[in-house]
């Protein structure tokens, strides 16, 4: 087929606002960022940036703070993704069954997802308050703890705090995508399996799971991207602390950018972050396809 010249010209004309916008405010900055990452651009010294080659990248990979924050990001991501996925999948299956209030429950379940993550994080901050928080009260009443926990003062509990907070927003997101996937599976498949005598676990194993492979892959990839990009929750709840215990790679990039003003180093870190996200997404998609 021959491209009509007039049509592609019109097409480009229509596209030009978006192309212009992306070029000026996204592509140009990303390329600048790549340039910065090869320099010692540092706002605190006030001297013009010098080209230093790959030194930022080499330093980053030798820096225990960076390595630890990458490991922490993986832990944070694995925990939030698995909690959200499991909880979301169970909820999706429940909401796909015959139940009361089906329509209301389905439509309100989008609310936690659409809430501002900063507000959600602050609300959890109050639940986990060390002195007056209801989390401690409930755990004490249940006899699970004897003394109040100051959640955001200790590394493991602070990590748990940001994981639970992020999961509470990611779960409904995953649930809604999974539910849409479940609704695509033709009812006939289940009926014929029932006639063949398959029990509900077998039906799940041999019909639901294979049919949902693609959707599951999409939700997991989205979860990974989401958790690797997480900033709001950490900024609102812990500022990366206590010490570095909740500083993920994303948050470390923010700190190097706007707390330490080491722009060159921060840009190098941000490309490591981008590469990790890309790599993990591609890997997950490959894994699901097999």
């Amino acid at each position, binding site marked *: 087929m021959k491209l009509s010249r007039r049509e*592609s010209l019109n097409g480009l004309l*229509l596209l030009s606002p978006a192309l212009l916008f992306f070029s000026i405010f996204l592509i140009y900055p990303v390329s600048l960022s790549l340039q910065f990452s090869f320099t010692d651009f540092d706002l605190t010294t006030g001297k013009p940036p010098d080209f230093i080659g790959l030194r930022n990248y080499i330093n980053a990979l030798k820096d225990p703070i960076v390595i630890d924050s990458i490991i922490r990001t993986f832990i944070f991501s694995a925990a939030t993704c698995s909690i959200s996925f499991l909880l979301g999948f169970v909820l999706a299956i429940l909401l796909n069954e015959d139940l009361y209030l089906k329509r209301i429950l389905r439509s309100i379940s989008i609310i936690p997802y659409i809430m501002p993550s900063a507000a959600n994080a602050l609300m959890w901050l109050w639940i986990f308050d060390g002195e007056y928080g209801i989390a401690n009260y409930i755990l004490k009443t249940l006899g699970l703890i004897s003394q109040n926990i100051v959640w955001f003062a200790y590394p493991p509990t602070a990590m748990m705090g940001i994981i639970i907070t992020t999961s509470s927003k990611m779960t409904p997101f995953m649930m809604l995508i999974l539910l849409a996937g479940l609704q695509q599976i033709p009812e006939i498949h289940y009926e014929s399996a029932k006639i063949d005598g398959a029990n509900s676990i077998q039906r799940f194993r041999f019909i639901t799971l294979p049919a949902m492979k693609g959707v599951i892959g999409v939700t997991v990839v989205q979860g990974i991207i989401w958790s690797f990009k997480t900033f709001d929750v950490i900024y609102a709840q812990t500022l990366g602390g206590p010490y570095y215990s909740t500083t993920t790679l994303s948050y470390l990039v923010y700190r190097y950018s706007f707390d330490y003003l080491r722009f060159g180093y921060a840009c190098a870190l941000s490309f490591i972050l981008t590469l990790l996200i890309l790599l993990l997404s591609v890997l997950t998609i490959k894994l699901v396809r097999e």
Partner: protein
Amino acid sequence: MNQRKILLKIKKILITFAAILILSFLFFPFFWATVSSFMHETELFSRTPKIAFSTLDNYITLFQDSFFINALKNSAILAPLTTLLTLLISTFSSYGLSRMRIPGRGALLLLIVFFQMLPTLAYIVPLFVFFNALKLLGTYYGLIIVFTLLNLPLSVYLLKTYFDSLPYGLEEAALVDGASYLTIITRIILPLSLPGLFTVGIFAFTGAWNELLFALVFSDSTTQTLPVKIVGYGQVSGHTRIALMLTGSVITSIPPVIIALLFSKYLLKGLTSGAFKY
């Protein structure tokens, strides 16, 4: 037969109960913060949590804080303007992407998906330097531009998918009659695409309303938005601050919650079309 019916009914009740149990965990923060925002300080800060709707004091204090009012005003201005600009840019480009045979269209689409997954932090530093040079930091213009930037990949993708689903016949007839693309878009496409535009608009609005990172770095004390303001309350210790932080969080959540309640259908359509926002 009757026994089987009863069993099915029990199963239905159990499933409903289980679903409500999980949902109540997800809704608990909002519920608890709302309840807390109506309590006196003495009730709020007691060792045994109470449920009481006893006062509007926290709301009154908050609405007397001129900084909070200013943040509310900024959010209420920035979110709709971002929505408008997002809709304007994405309508034309999505139409182009959907209907024209543009060289490299596949690559363009892939690029848009890539923009969506790219972390904001990968370009925020140069954008900061760039905006500083253009004197856009701390201005409405700067914030509208960055919010639109964050919204665009999703919006273009969503609308393109929507336009793809519209029949081409009407436009062809109009083209034969010599109508221009502008006429076609405004007279034929837009009226047919209201649901799609609505979905994009809702996502753009909540996206701008909820955004924290750009709002934090690119604003100054006069252009601060609500999320930045409430996080500010959270970062200063003191009892009054906690009450304000909770009340502020509830108020900030109200517009997205109302949107979700009224338009969940549109949001779901957007979410399941393969374009995602977090």
